[in-house]
């Protein structure tokens, strides 16, 4: 891995030096070295570019603004980010000519919260060892974890890599999807009674503090003006005063990306209250798959979202699949 990172760094430095790109979008250390933030690098500071098991942020969204400016930008895309990138191309939010795509390998990212949950305090840095374990350096000594125990939840449902034409490919081979069923949890919820589902979601959504992190990080949420920024929208951009606001915000947030959500899992990752927001998005994914045929947003650029299409044979809402095999209502 270290060799690959050096190669990526060298490539970025070369691109900046010969003027192919004016900036590189990658990751830099945030407040802590394990808390990576997106970084915009130029020739001066390209040395501080880093890529390791903590580089979870999806960088494709930053291209919407960056690709509007003069000159090209390079971007590092992990396999899961390639879906979001394709989706943004499909929606004409990014000019492909303005972007220099570097696809990079990924072996799964670490969820720092899982390490904290294991009772580890005073973390100073993380390190991925050659045998694939994670060594956590703390103020009180080192601790080693099996990677699977501290991996981000979304990485267990890795979709692999989308069909993408990279300008520079640092992946040895196209990443294959993980052998797991990402709709499993949605099915588990659907099998509950309406009462149980209501209680479950009340419990989850009542923790929402309306920080808007889920919306701001979402690569599909790229509207210049969001409905929730409208003070007439009925949901104020502050902590919810009423249970209705919580439900409304989360239904509409998920609905607005239905058919465009690539299931990158950023919403759940950034949620400070650990609300499983991806389960709302996956419900739409499941309903679309069940009713209108399997569809993976961003698998290739230029596909038509099932929500903006129709067939004459579509089922009425009362006959749709969820009505038949959903839970007891």
């Amino acid at each position, binding site marked *: 891995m270290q060799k690959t990172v050096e190669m990526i760094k060298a490539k970025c430095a070369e691109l900046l030096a010969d003027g192919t790109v004016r900036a590189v979008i990658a990751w830099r250390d945030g407040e802590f070295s394990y808390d990576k933030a997106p970084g915009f690098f130029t020739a001066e500071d390209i040395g501080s570019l880093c890529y390791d098991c903590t580089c979870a942020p999806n960088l494709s969204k930053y291209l919407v603004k960056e690709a509007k400016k003069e000159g090209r930008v390079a971007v590092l895309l992990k396999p899961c980010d390639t879906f979001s990138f394709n989706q943004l191309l499909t929606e004409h939010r990014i000019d492909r000519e303005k972007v220099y795509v570097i696809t990079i390998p990924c072996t799964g990212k670490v969820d720092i919260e899982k390490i904290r949950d294991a009772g580890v305090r005073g973390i100073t840095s993380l390190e991925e060892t050659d045998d694939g374990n994670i060594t956590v350096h703390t103020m009180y000594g080192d601790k080693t974890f099996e990677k699977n125990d501290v991996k981000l939840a979304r990485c267990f449902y890795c979709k692999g890599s989308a069909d993408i034409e990279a300008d520079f490919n640092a992946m040895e081979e196209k990443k294959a999807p993980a052998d797991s069923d990402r709709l499993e949890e*949605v099915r588990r*919820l*659907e099998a509950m009674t*309406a*009462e*149980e*589902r*209501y*209680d*479950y*979601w*009340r419990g989850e959504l009542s923790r929402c503090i309306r920080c808007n992190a889920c919306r701001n990080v979402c690569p599909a949420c790229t509207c210049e003006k969001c*409905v929730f920024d409208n003070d007439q*929208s*009925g949901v104020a951009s502050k902590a919810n*005063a*009423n*249970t*209705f*606001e919580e*439900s*409304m915000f989360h*239904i*509409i947030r*998920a*609905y607005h990306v*239905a058919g465009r959500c690539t299931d990158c899992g950023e919403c759940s990752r950034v949620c400070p209250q650990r609300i499983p927001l991806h389960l*709302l998005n996956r*419900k*739409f994914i499941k*309903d*679309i798959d069940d*009713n*209108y045929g399997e569809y993976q947003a961003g698998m290739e650029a230029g596909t038509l979202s*099932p*929500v*903006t*299409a*129709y*067939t*004459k044979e*579509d*089922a*009425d*809402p*009362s006959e*749709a699949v*969820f*009505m038949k095999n*959903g839970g007891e*209502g």
Partner: protein
Amino acid sequence: MNKNGEYTPLIVAFCCNWCSYAGADLAGTSRLTYPADVKIIRVPCSCRVNPMFVLKAFQRGADGVILCGCHPGDCHYLTGNYYTRRRMTLLFGMLDYMGIERERTRVEWVSAAEGAKFAAVMNDFAKTVSELGENRRLEDLRCKKPLK
């Protein structure tokens, strides 16, 4: 609540201008009865109904929301109701997923000639919703009428 203190549901019906609204008119001129608790909102096409409209209706005290449009294939704008069908399938699926009673939402196709169907649909829907009772799971307390 009606004057006698009995519970009657408030139902919001979004009716498309070209078929269902005319269907409601026909039900009226044919002297067919349907509950007075059905409040009709005329929309140019059933696909004009933003999912937010449905949620807002619940927020403002509706106990049931029904969308009526032209039969698929008969849309005045050719394809509007095909989109409605997909959108509402997804929205209703989500409401159901969040535990909001699925019987509170419905889509029906009512043509301008189907006054009888309009009355029958509204009677049936009002009955279903009144059996469910007041909308508690998607209510906004701030929008409730003050207690006397």
